[in-house]
């Protein structure tokens, strides 16, 4: 376990970064997409990311947005899997794969696609809120 001497409490500075106009816009989109409250998402971001990654969130979101195509009907697209595992890594690959697997299992067991995706989204929301 690596620890540093002279650690500062960075929460206040991280909150200032997340309060910039560009971050406000990006966070609003993320909150709407995953149905989480802004303060919860902010807390998660502040816990997980260092300051350089926090600063770069709007640009990373833009990269993901450019990659998206409207014709893509996959479950990964519906969950924004690459967005929250690669561009803005809020979930680990394993967590995301497990949610996708469970959703796929439900669909193959005869469950409707839309409620299955909705349940998957709830699982993502639980991880984000934890």
């Amino acid at each position, binding site marked *: 376990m690596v*620890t540093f001497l002279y650690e500062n409490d*960075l929460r206040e500075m991280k909150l*200032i970064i997340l309060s910039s*106009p560009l971050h406000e816009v990006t966070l609003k989109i993320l909150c709407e997409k995953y149905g989480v409250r802004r303060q919860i998402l902010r807390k998660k971001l502040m816990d997980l990311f*260092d*300051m*350089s990654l926090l*600063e770069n969130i*709007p640009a*990373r979101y833009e990269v993901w947005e450019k990659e998206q195509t409207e014709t893509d009907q996959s479950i990964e697209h519906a969950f924004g899997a690459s967005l929250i595992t690669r561009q803005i890594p809020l979930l680990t690959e394993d967590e995301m794969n497990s949610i996708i697997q469970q959703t796929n299992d439900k669909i193959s067991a005869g469950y409707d696609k839309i409620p299955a995706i909705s349940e998957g989204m709830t699982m993502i929301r639980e991880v984000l809120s934890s």
Partner: protein
Amino acid sequence: MKKIVDVSLPIGPVHPVFKEPCRIKCVTNGEYVTSAELELGYVKKGIERIMVGRPWQEVMFLAERVCGICSVIHNYVCIEGMERINDIPVPDRAEYLRVVLNELDRIQSHLLANYSYCYTIEHETLAMYLLNLRETAMDALELITGARVTCSYIIPGGVRFDLTPEKENTLRGMLDHIDSELTRFVHMFKGGSMIALRSKDVGMFTREEAIESHSVGPTARASNLDNDCRLFHPIYKKLEFKSILLDDGDNYSRIMLRFLEIFQSTKLIRSCLAQMEPGIIRGGGIIGEGTSKWSGEAPRGELTYEISTDEFGRVKKISIRTPSIMNIEACVHYMLKGVDSAADVTSTYISSDPCIACNER
């Protein structure tokens, strides 16, 4: 028996090779860096918030003060963004003069970045040569605008001062001097075996990583990712601008790309001087109500201003996205990972030309 242990290696906030304060926290296995984090917040200005509610006449000066190294491009992009709100026309001569100034600013910024790198890898002779040559570019900026750093040269509808034929001749002489001296220094950089040892295959950054982190400017172009904003700028299109790309994505190619871009900049300035016709340099214009988003190519990469103003031209909302935000993140999370010597951490960091003032706007 040699024992390798996990070590936490904090560098900064004050370090001899850092131009500005920041703290890099590396986790190393022996000297091999397994991950790194960055701590900022030592020089936060909150300039976006200061700008809100102020008239455009004040904001154009504040914009320059975001960064002391590349102040011209902040002035340029902020004004061009504002001009787009009210469709303010700019005379041709002023357009060319803006490019001249922007490219001079790029020359001095690239020379400073490469100076910092050479100083970091302890090649102080070449570093001092480069810093000395930067003075020629700074003198050229002063020749045209009367100031070295915060020039306030670009205004809505034109520029402040014209370039007289005498000054044009002096500028041509300065460009020749930069070209001839830099050719010599690039030869030294290429031929230095110790430089190659410290720079080649160090701080690797692939094209895919550059796309993922939205890396911009020379940092991205050294990894063969072409996202130069000058390709889409109307006046650069007239100058038939083509961006320079390199493949290797290591420290060496990032520094070499900046050298090549300096030659390109001197060529662009000469083209401007050749194409520029005599005429007016300012057509006037004031800013009214509206919103615009405009990007320009700063020495470090894409700089974006999103401005929204009220009917009196006061800024209602402004967001500035500087290139260092993307490049520093790319450096800390991709380039530093895998560096196998503690000495290479600082050189890799400097090779991405980080600007903390821009990042902590």
